[in-house]
Structure formats: C-alpha cells, structure tokens
C-alpha cells in the first residue's frame, strides 16, 4: 500500500471516529497559524477552534509569561469577534496587545478576585458562544477544571486559551499535571539575530508543542508574532531538508 493510500484510510477512520463522538463540522473548524511547518503537525491543520489550549512561558518567563501572553494574543487576534481576557493580576499593558493585533475595542478584561471566580468567568465566556476567543491567566488548572472548560469550549464553539502563570519561580512546572486541553504550548524566549545596525530585531521564540491530542509533540523555532498576530517560521532551523527551503521562503518573510 502506498503512503497516500494509507493516509486516506487513516483519514477515513478518523472521520468515522469523529462521527461517533458526535462532533459536527463546526467543532472541527481550525485556526491555522499560516506556517505550514506548524500547521502540518496539528490535526486538522491548525488550532482546533472549539477547544481548550494551554500556553505557558518557559524558563525565566514562567512567572511573567510575557512571551506566552503575546503568543496567546496573536492567536486571539486572528479570531473573529470580541475577546474576553480574564486575569487576576492587573499587570497587563494594553498597548502591547494592540501591537500584537488585538485592537483595544475588541478586548474585554475581567479582573476576577480569585482563581475560582476566574474559572467561572472563563467558563461563562466560553458557553456564551458569541466571542471570538476567551483567554484566562490561570495559576492552577486541575484535570476536572480543564475538562469542564473543554466541554464549555465545545458547547459554545469558542477558542479557549488558558495562559498558565506560575506564582513563584520555584513552583513546579505548569504542565506537570495532566489536563484535558487539546494542545499545550510552552513559549521560551531565544536571543534574537544580530542586526547589521545597533538595535533590537524581531523577537525569537522557541515554541514547544508539549502535548497535542491526536498528534505528536514537536519543537519549533519561530519569530514572534507581528502586528497582525502572525508568527513566522525562523529561517535558522537546523534540520530542515534542503529541497523544502525554496517552498518555505514565503512563510519566513
């Protein structure tokens, strides 16, 4: 059996399993990154819209989660409609979101007093169904809570992003516990490429796809999201096959 035939069989089987799950075409809608290297790794060719995704910062960024926040903002910016941003700490600087493509008129902030009410607001926003995306900066996310959120995201057809922020540097890894999230991303910052003149170039991220339901984990070196919230593939990928290079120039431009 050729590779293509095998793929067709697998795709057919996947469709049938999805029918058993009772998920409709709307649930299968995805939000592609526009970067073939990443989209190919994700089932359906992008981030599943009606589901929960987890993002956390890596290394020193685990507490502030600034890079993770911009990554989440970039994803939310590419959805349609308003975005609900739930937080407990008010250190977010709105102009940065605007520079990541999220216009100030699109974001509604919810400053919940504690984690419990934060999760309630998160779920409420997901169930409403009229929002483009709901982002919540959560410290802890138990299996039960993530399951609830995943179900709420499916029910409302809304993209859910749990932005994990540790409270202390010494705290255990945010992804140490299992969760029902469809994908888990860790965003680490990388030193940027030197410019020919003094200055700071586009930020570089090391993007780890730690978990992906119906997919494999992967690592990517990308350039940080731009003014439209799009990340670009880093031109410095070491193990890229040479023949693919020509086709990917567009993605890194």
């Amino acid at each position, binding site marked *: 059996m050729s590779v293509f035939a095998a793929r067709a069989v697998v795709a057919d089987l996947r469709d049938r399993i999805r029918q058993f799950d009772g998920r409709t075409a709307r649930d299968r809608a995805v939000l592609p990154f526009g970067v073939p290297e990443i989209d190919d790794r994700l089932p359906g060719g992008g981030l599943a819209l009606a589901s929960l995704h987890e993002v956390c910062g890596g290394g020193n960024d685990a507490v502030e989660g600034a890079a993770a926040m911009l990554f989440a903002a970039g994803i939310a910016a590419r959805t349609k409609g308003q975005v609900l941003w739930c937080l407990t700490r008010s250190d977010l600087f709105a102009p*940065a979101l605007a*520079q990541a493509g999220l216009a*100030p008129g699109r974001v*509604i902030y919810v400053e919940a007093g504690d984690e419990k009410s934060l999760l309630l607001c998160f779920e*409420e926003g997901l169930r409403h169904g009229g929002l483009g995306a709901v982002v919540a900066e959560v410290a802890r996310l138990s299996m039960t809570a993530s399951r609830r959120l995943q179900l709420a995201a499916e029910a409302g057809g809304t993209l859910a992003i749990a932005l994990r922020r540790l409270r202390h540097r010494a705290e255990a890894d945010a992804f140490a516990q299992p969760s029902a999230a469809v994908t888990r991303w860790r965003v680490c910052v990388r030193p940027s490429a030197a410019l020919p003149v003094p200055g700071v170039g586009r*930020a570089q991220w090391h993007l780890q796809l730690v978990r992906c339901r119906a997919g494999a984990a992967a690592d990517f070196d990308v350039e940080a999201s731009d003014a439209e919230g799009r990340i670009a593939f880093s031109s410095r990928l070491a193990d890229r096959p040479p023949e693919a290079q020509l086709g990917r120039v567009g993605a890194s431009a």
Partner: protein
Amino acid sequence: MGALAPPPDDRLVLVGREGSRRIVTAVSRPAEQAGLRVGMPLTKAHALLPDVLTMPADPVADAAALNRLALWALQHYAPIVAPDPPDGLVIDTTGADHLHGGEERMLTGLVNRLGASGIFARAAVADTWGAAHAAARFCADPVCIIAPGTTSDRVAPLPILGLRIPPDIVTGLHVLGFATIGDVLAVPRAPLVLRFGPLLGRRLDQLQGILSEPVDPLRDPELASVRKVFGEPIGAPETIARYTTALVHDLCLALEKRGLGARRLDLLFHRVDNSLQAIRVGTAQPVRDEKRLTRLLSDRIETIDPGFGIEIMDLTATLAEPLLLQQAVSSLIEEEQADIAGLVDVIANRIGARRLYRMAPVESDVPERSVHRVAPLAPDDGATWQGRWPRPARLLARPEPIEVMALLPDHPPGAFTWRGVRRLVKRADGPERIFGEWWKRDAELAAVRDYFQVEDASGERFWLFRSGNEQQAASGAGRWFLHGIFA
C-alpha cells in the same frame, strides 16, 4: 428648599412649636459652634445670638426629602432601604457591598457623594440596625465599620442617646447616672424595665441582635413592580426559580407598557419569620428580555436562605430606562456582531461591574497614564495607541530601581541588576525620550525619561528608563528603573 436655601455657613436655626413654646428643632453647624442646641427655646437662642437666622421648620417636607434620598440610595446601593426619621437612612447591605468594592469603600463613597451634593453625612455598618444607628451618630469617625461579633464591645462607649429611645427615658437614665450604652448593658434588666417600660429592653435586645428587627423596605409607586403572595410558604430552589420566571414575565409586560427596560432589578423575599432576603441584579443596558433577566436572577437564587419558607416574592425594576429598538443587521454584506451584553451582565453581577472593563487609549506619552478603563459596552471609536515604538507586555505597577552600568550621555546600559539578578545586555534600542506633562502638572516641568528596550543574553527583553538628562539637575536624578517586560 433648593435654590432658596441660605448658604451653609450661615448661622441658621429651624424653629418649630412644642405646645405654645417656639423651640429650635435644627441648627446649622456654625450656629452649633456658637452655642445653640436643638431643643432650646427660641428666646434663649436669640439671647445668645441676636443675629441668628431663623426659618420655620417643615417636618412634612423634611420627610419627603428623606424619602427621596432613600429612593436614591435604593437605586444606587442596596435593594432594602428605608428612611429612618427624622434624619437617617437604614440600608441592608447584605450582599451589596462587594459590588461597591467592599464595605469601607462603599461607605466612604456614600459619604463623599452625599457631601458633594451638600449633605453632611456619617455612615456605619454593623450587625444590627440598632448598633449601626448608634455608631453612625456617635462614632468619632464619619465612617465606622463594626466587624461582625464585636458589636457589644464597640457600642459600649457610645452615649445612650444612640439607643433610639424617647428623650424622657434618656433624661431618666442620665439622672440615674447612666452615660453610655455599656453602662446600661452592664446592669440587670428587670429594674430598668420596671422603671422605664419595655421599650428600653427591646432596644437593647435589638442592638445586640437578640431580637430581630426587620427593615420595612421603601417602595416607590412610580416603579414597575410585581408581587406574588403564596398561600403556602415555599422553600425549594426549583420552586423559587419557577416563580421567578413567572414574576419576570409579569414585570416585562409592565415594563413594556411603559416603554422601559430594566437596568436594575430587586427581588425581595419576605420570609415567614418576618425577615427579608434580597437579590439585586444590574444590567449594562436597558433590558426587557425575559430570558436574560430570568437567567441573571436565577444565578443568585443560591444566595437566598429560605429559612422556614417564603410567603411573598416582590420583584421591582428599581432603575429603568427607556428601551429603544435597534436594528440588529443593517445589510447583507455586513458581518453579524454577536451580542455580548448578556454575557457582560452575567459576569458583572457575579464579580462586580467595576471589574469588567475595556482599555481605551489616552493621549499621553507617559506609559502608565496612556490607558484608562471604560465600560465594556462603551461604543468603540476604533481609537488605538499612536506611535510605533514597541510597548512591553507587562508593565510593573511602579518602576523598580535597578543598578546599571551605562556610558554617558545617552548610551543604553551594558549590564543591569534587577531583583538580585545581573543581566548582560546584548542588544538595545533607544533612547525614546518621554517628557513629563508640564502642561498638566507643575512638578513635571522638567521631568524626562529616556526609555531603552534591551535584550539580555538569554533573549529576555526589558523596558528600562533613566530619569532625567545630564544637563539639567531638575529633570531627574539620573537613576535607572525597570518599567516593563516585553517577552
């Protein structure tokens, strides 16, 4: 008296009649400082202060004004409000304080708002009406909060005038040597009751919470209101929810007749033990949608303790505004905008309307002043922040001082130490010079900040600034701060 009122710094007394005597019923503050007191005969007042301004007292108009004030408090603060004549309001703040940022902020806000409209007010929160009454009138601070369980201790030093008893009992107690509420609480009850009647004992019990004291809530006939009286008391949450739906239906019909939409709904539960429980929900825009209003009320039913049963449910649109019909979709091409007002209301009622906001740009170069909060459903004018300089994702609440090695006059730092970690700067961009807003604040006439975006060896990016330039000492001390984190 409105516009006819004399200025507040006049020495004014109001004059009423007691039998054939003309006595002073109220004194303004300057008059009080001059030695005039309530209850004094007018002749004595004239003797003390010949140029005192006198006006006839009008208790009926006073009561009407107090009612209007109570109605205002009802619309702005809590569902259960009643006038407490002659000069007070009683507000049951149960479940209402968190929507105003806690008890202290609520009371301070109340006193300040009343003060801004020329009403000198004092406020207190306590477990019982009696304790709050005494504390509001006789506590040293204009805002007094008595923590739950400490009522007896806090009220003990207050004078017996705060007990809501007729003046003759007060005089009688004074004659016996009682000065404070604590003195009265300390002695056996029976001889006191024998001498002064049952009222004193009842007031003392109500003060301590031994005897319940329901507040008879103010209701304005102008407001749309529906009521359901039950033959048999109800208690199950499902039953309450069912009747809530029915009441909302009736209320929406009543609102429709007037062309109004509800901005604030109060659902009162009269329990069989003669106490009151209340739910208040608010909406960001006028609403007459039964489903949405029912949802908002049903969300809060769990906070109601039915006790031995509820015999009356009373639903009032405390605040209603004209509801205008709007066209939802204007053309086929335009994308449909999802209506999120319902979601906003649900969340706002759960965590407080102030915690739900949008950020809008302010024309200011100073980063911490460049954002302000607007209501989540405020019209979007599409404005955004001008300028292409990158802004950090996280802005520290206040800039943190850092230790820096930098070349003068305007080079970015080569290394800096923040929170005990030394970082080598690999790349840097700047300076972006931001001047103080001298046209608004005199203190910032010469203030200058030079912002740099720096990247350390691991790729983390920070937003640093140096306050001041080298030429003018007034522009700042030349110290370095870390203000934000990029990514």
